[in-house]
């Protein structure tokens, strides 16, 4: 059972306080987008063994959404960060590079 630090209220929250929200940093496509773009937006997801970026909500807590970078194989958590960003911040990417040199995830590395 995971523990993730909520960057909004500072609590090291165990999983029973949290709700998982799927993959992070997905760009919304609305009216005007092509069928392929919209299809990918709705359905195409990463399924990595290793570094992954996810959305979580501190639902039994401060109610805020946040992002987590973690390893799906070892469950190592590289960091949690604000939901108000479209890409992983530099310090998170660096923290991952320190532990998993050469990592890649979608367009990030």
């Amino acid at each position, binding site marked *: 059972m995971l523990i993730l630090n909520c960057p909004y*209220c500072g609590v090291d929250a165990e999983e029973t*306080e949290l709700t998982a929200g799927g993959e992070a940093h997905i760009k919304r496509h609305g009216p005007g987008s092509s069928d392929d773009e919209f299809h990918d937006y709705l359905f195409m997801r990463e399924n990595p063994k290793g570094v992954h970026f996810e959305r979580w909500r501190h639902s*039994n807590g401060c109610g805020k959404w946040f992002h987590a970078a973690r390893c799906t194989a070892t469950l190592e958590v590289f960091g949690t960060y604000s939901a108000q960003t479209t890409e992983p911040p530099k310090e998170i990417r660096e923290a991952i590079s320190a532990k998993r040199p050469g990592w890649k995830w979608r367009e990030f590395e």
Partner: protein
Amino acid sequence: MSEPISALNHASYDGIARIEECGLQGMITLRGDLSGKVVIKAVKDATGQKMPGQREAHVDGETGVCWMSPDELLVLVPYAEVEAKLAAMKDALGGVHALAVNVSDARAVFRVSGASAREVLAKVAPVDLSRDAFQPGQIRRSRLAQVAGAFWMDGEDDFRVVCFRSAADYVFKLLKVAAQPGSEVGVY
């Protein structure tokens, strides 16, 4: 208007801790920029309290203010004064983007007190309730077994627990089980 009645109308129970429903408490959910001068002043005017920092609760009896999230406070005022305080607060907040709303009747409040109060809470919330981890002046939002709840300490061995009004009966029964005689854990 008729006499307002709280969810459990002051029900109480004595076990390894005393559980009592506190009756009606005036509560205002205030959302806004907590670092903004207008919001800080509105809180001060309503409660006499300073703006709480992350997970802080500045509470004195029926009056106070609790940090709920980076943009949300729970403002406590005596039940009879809530409409007047809310109106004043809305006035004061007129110029800024903020939301103040009366939630007094949407909640139930319990007092859990006595030597084993920490242990009773630690049976239902996944929270470190040891003395070095949780102290008066702090608030924690978490879950109480299967429902959402929040609690702070008014003093050593003295908790106030807030939950949704519809869950009051569940939380009361839950706390009664957790406080049943002979269930002291002996760690706090």
